């Protein structure tokens, strides 16, 4: 099983499972309340230079409130997992929070277009990049979640994506086939937004998990934001529905609408107008600075951000849209 090809990208984290084991050995397993406010959680668990990953996909179930708070607190020099990072990416890029990125998908907002500020930052030469794919990053989290230094896969073979990754290509000792080895990625800290959590961090996600199952296990520290706190009794009533167990979790922050202006399945649909405003305002540097002040730097918290964008009334409209009630209403 020879190493046949070596990539040129740099690993921003150590894939050594024994170093991770030493960390996890000392992590508390006590079932005690971890409820705190978001700004305290970010202050406590997100540090300059840390490797950060956030949950969700695109602007869906993405912890936007946490991204704002990280920018507001002025974190710098972080590494970031660009795993279909869209609106989260442009927020963090606007704050120049990171200078190293593992890329699967960045700078774009899917069908909505590309983010000028994110592109400019990525084209500045100030950000070190290592290239992966969505499944590649998911695989790296999965390797970490399994406590092994890598898992094999059959993607990125033959491409420049491989050359600019930190993967290796080897020959399979069972079959002789060429395999990509995806090294484990243990983020220092991850933030995942969930539908429901108890005070200990037992949490439920409804709908697609994306790669948050793997991420929640790979991360050394894990902050949950939750649409609502629920009782431990309710968690225990239906253990099949638990998506994330409490012992992975360091902080539980109840932040309603924390994925706004993105979508939270079954709760609220994305605010497409505000997302377009985000993209449009970036064309003018001064306006963008003012926009960031208004929405992030001078905005004390997510409640105020929601208030500035229509508050409960707007959230109700987005809920109607999410539940497709707007169609029934317009037809009714």
């Amino acid at each position, binding site marked *: 099983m020879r190493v046949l090809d070596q990539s040129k990208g740099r690993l921003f984290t150590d894939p050594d499972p024994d170093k991770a084991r030493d960390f996890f050995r000392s992590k508390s397993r006590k079932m005690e309340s971890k409820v705190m406010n978001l700004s305290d959680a970010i202050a406590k668990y997100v540090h300059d230079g840390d490797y950060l990953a956030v949950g969700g996909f695109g602007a869906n179930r993405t912890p936007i409130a946490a991204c704002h708070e990280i920018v507001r607190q002025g974190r710098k020099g972080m590494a970031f997992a660009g795993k*279909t990072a869209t609106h989260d990416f442009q927020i963090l890029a606007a704050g120049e929070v990171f200078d190293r990125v593992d890329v699967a998908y960045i700078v774009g907002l899917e069908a909505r277009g590309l983010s000028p500020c994110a592109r400019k930052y990525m084209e500045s030469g100030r950000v070190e990049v290592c290239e992966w794919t969505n499944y590649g990053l998911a695989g790296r989290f999965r390797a970490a979640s399994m406590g092994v230094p890598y898992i094999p896969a059959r993607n990125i073979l*033959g491409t420049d994506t491989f050359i600019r990754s930190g993967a290796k290509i080897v020959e399979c000792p069972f079959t002789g086939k060429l395999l990509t080895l995806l090294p484990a990625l243990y983020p220092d800290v991850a933030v995942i937004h969930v539908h429901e959590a108890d005070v200990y961090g037992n949490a439920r996600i409804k709908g697609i998990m994306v790669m948050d199952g793997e991420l929640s296990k790979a991360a050394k520290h894990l902050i949950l934001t939750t649409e609502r706190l629920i009782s431990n009794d309710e968690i225990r009533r239906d253990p099949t529905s638990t998506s994330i167990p409490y012992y992975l979790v360091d902080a539980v922050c109840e932040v309603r609408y924390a994925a706004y202006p993105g979508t939270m399945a079954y709760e609220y649909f994305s605010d497409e107008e505000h997302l377009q405003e985000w993209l449009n305002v970036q064309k003018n540097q001064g306006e963008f600075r003012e926009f960031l002040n208004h929405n992030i730097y001078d905005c004390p918290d997510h409640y105020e951000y929601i208030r500035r964008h229509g508050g409960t009334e707007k959230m109700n409209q987005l809920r109607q849209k999410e539940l*497709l009630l707007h169609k029934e209403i317009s037809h009714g």
Partner: protein
Amino acid sequence: MANYNTMEIMICVAARELEDGATVGVGTGAPCAAAMLAQKTHSPNLVIMFEAGGVSPILPEMPISVGDSRTFYRAVMASSMCDIMDTCSRGLVDYTFLGGAQIDMYGNLNSTIIGEDYRKPKVRFPGSGGANDFASFCWRTIVMTLQDGRRFVEKVDFITTPGWLAGGDSRVNSGLPPGTGPYKIITNMGIMDFEPRSKRMRAVSVNPGYSFQHIQDNCGFELLQAKDTLQTEPPTEEELRILREEVDPYRYVIGR
């Protein structure tokens, strides 16, 4: 003959490639519209999978994101990226639809950077997303893109997503699963496939109003031409009606 625009013909032509009972991994936009159109015409049992986890939803409208809640609306399963991509890796997914900023004569796609200095690119694009994964695992990759000499280039600045790599047997020799690879390229001017031995791009069908020469003039490399180049059937009234009224009534994809 019906009136239609560039996007409409591409979507209609792409939809026809998807036979009933097939599985397809799609992104949002034109690929999703093509899959929806196929479902509503000749392939009611087409199984649509979204990389973020949605399996076989009953799409109430065009999703904006590959992971938005529409992608698992009344789905048979709301799963995960690993589950969907594992399913592709196991060989259960027949088709995928992709695009890219650049494509070369072997169907290799670039969606990463333009420029010569990787560390300081002239243009930074999003990167692979799930494209490299889908193209590595799904049996047949279909590319939908506009016919344009700046897109169809001699050499892509960066191979984000594998096509036939350097042609011939190079793809299978790279370790990618045998039997996979680019299948068709669908543009506003025509349909290309790949010559079986050399794996070079080859025009096989020309859209109404265009000739092979039009396609070649909008292609940055020498295209092969199939012996019996066909005339692409234009979109039917029925295809257009379903596309406009049921698939994309707000004209997100087909434009206004």
